[in-house]
């Protein structure tokens, strides 16, 4: 390597200043300086490249979703969550179409506010508003558990719903009080209460509720007969909560759902309704001509019900029902903006 030590120069001959070799003293380190600077620049560039490479690997392993998955998930969840709002609105504001529509706007605004509060922490700002009610249905409600399953005029055998194209829910609670006893109930021998659903092809589905009480306790037996098969739910204490559409009694005993064996339209009929007491709610939709407002109208069996505006509050009535609602969705995320319209059918 080049000598970078202090210059020693030629020996003193005894007179005059020490002799210097041109370019060998102060200039000696220039090569090193240039080299060092060049190498320094190379190292800096290399460090920058290394940094870029690391950034590239980092970029490659980051989530590739700009937030679209959240937007799609939110939109998908609307069907269920707004569906629940619609169901609750139908039950709470079950009077007129106007009341139902206004009630839905109020309830959905409340829900949207809650959704916004939950989402804002994650950087999302969703908004859901009612655009319009796309389809109307009808609901039959008996809300007095001591009332019999007769119509408003007291007829025990009557058609509750005729020509239902869709049956969304059919929930009933039957009390033991008044039920007839029968070991093997069927439509030819039983004088007790049963529910009969008839499909378009003439197929039927029947549910018989009978008393099976002992001296000690009150029990109810349920027999479901359809297409030659019988399913029994026995020893239900005091009152039976039955989800006919879901095919389950008291949450544990399963039976064949009428929707799985009957073709639409479906008629719903109560037979010997005077022998049973309890509540029920049926949500259904009929293919009826629309009225001037473009909305489907009354139940064909409307005459069998009490006036929904009667005073005191009616215990058996039929009203409109929001079947399908069209909602406007706006979703704002850090990198995503989405606007759309969603049809929600509970």
């Amino acid at each position: 390597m080049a000598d970078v030590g202090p210059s020693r120069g030629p020996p003193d001959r005894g007179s005059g200043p020490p002799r210097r070799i041109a370019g060998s003293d102060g200039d000696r380190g220039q090569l090193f300086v240039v080299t060092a600077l060049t190498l320094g620049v190379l190292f800096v560039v290399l460090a920058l490249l290394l940094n870029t490479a690391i950034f590239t690997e980092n970029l490659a392993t980051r989530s590739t979703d700009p937030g679209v998955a959240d937007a799609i998930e939110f939109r998908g969840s609307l069907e269920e969550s707004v569906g629940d709002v619609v169901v609750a609105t139908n039950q709470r504001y079950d009077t007129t179409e106007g009341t139902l529509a206004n009630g839905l706007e109020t309830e959905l605004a409340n829900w949207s506010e809650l959704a916004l509060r939950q989402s804002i922490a994650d950087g999302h700002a969703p908004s859901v508003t009612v655009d319009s009610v796309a389809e109307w249905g009808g609901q039959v409600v008996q809300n007095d558990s001591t009332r019999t399953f007769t119509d408003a005029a007291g007829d025990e055998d009557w058609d509750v719903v005729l020509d239902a194209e869709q049956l969304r829910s059919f929930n009933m609670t039957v009390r033991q009080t008044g039920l007839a006893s029968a070991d093997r109930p069927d439509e030819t021998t039983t004088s007790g209460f049963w529910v009969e659903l008839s499909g378009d092809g003439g197929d039927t589905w029947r549910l018989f509720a009978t008393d099976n009480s002992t001296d000690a306790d009150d029990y109810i037996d349920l027999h479901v007969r359809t297409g030659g098969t019988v399913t029994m739910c026995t020893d239900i204490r005091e009152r039976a909560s039955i989800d006919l559409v879901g095919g389950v009694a008291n949450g544990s005993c399963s039976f064949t759902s009428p929707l799985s064996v009957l073709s639409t339209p479906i008629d719903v009929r109560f037979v010997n309704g005077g022998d049973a007491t309890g509540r029920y709610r049926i949500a259904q939709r009929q293919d009826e001509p629309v009225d001037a407002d473009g909305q489907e109208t009354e139940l064909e069996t409307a005459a069998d019900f009490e006036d929904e505006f009667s005073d005191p509050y009616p215990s058996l009535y039929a009203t409109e029902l929001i079947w399908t609602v069209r909602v406007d969705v706006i979703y704002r995320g850090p990198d995503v903006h989405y606007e759309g319209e969603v049809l929600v059918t509970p």
Partner: protein
Amino acid sequence: MTVPPAHGSSARVDVDGDTSDARFAPNVPLQSRDRAVSTVLGYVLTLGITAILVGGLMMAGGQFVGDQRERVVRSELGVVAERFATDLESADRLAAMDGTDAVEVESRLPARLGGVRYAVTITDEDVRTDQPNTYTIEVTTRSDRLSETVSTTIGLESQLVTDTHRGGDLAIVLTGTGPLTLEVQDG
């Protein structure tokens, strides 16, 4: 390389104790000239060899840095192409949902790759692939010193407006719903 010592080692001591340098002795005039020549030659050789070594080091270092840079840029081009293609597919998923009115997805991409600007080009590949709404995303460096291109092919449900965009943040916007049309705009 051996450079004769300029002084010291060849000093001699007289019998009376005086010291004197051999170079100034009257009987060695040629040695003095040789020493001057060998000193200069020594420096020249030292500096020359050092310059060759340093030059070689710099050339090798420069080549190494250049190679690394190309590799890094090529790698990052691929990452950017895949990320942008994914963002396009995400926007397409949103746009294809029933009832969609408006979609805007921000694609966050770096403005430079390894210090080099780049361009994103969307090309329609329907004819070549015989598949509708098939597009090639080409990411190309915009530099005279470095020319690299990486491409990837995607299939969408929406139509995509073909164009070339400067590298950096881009916005994917739904501009038509019948038929579904996505357009990339500079973010």
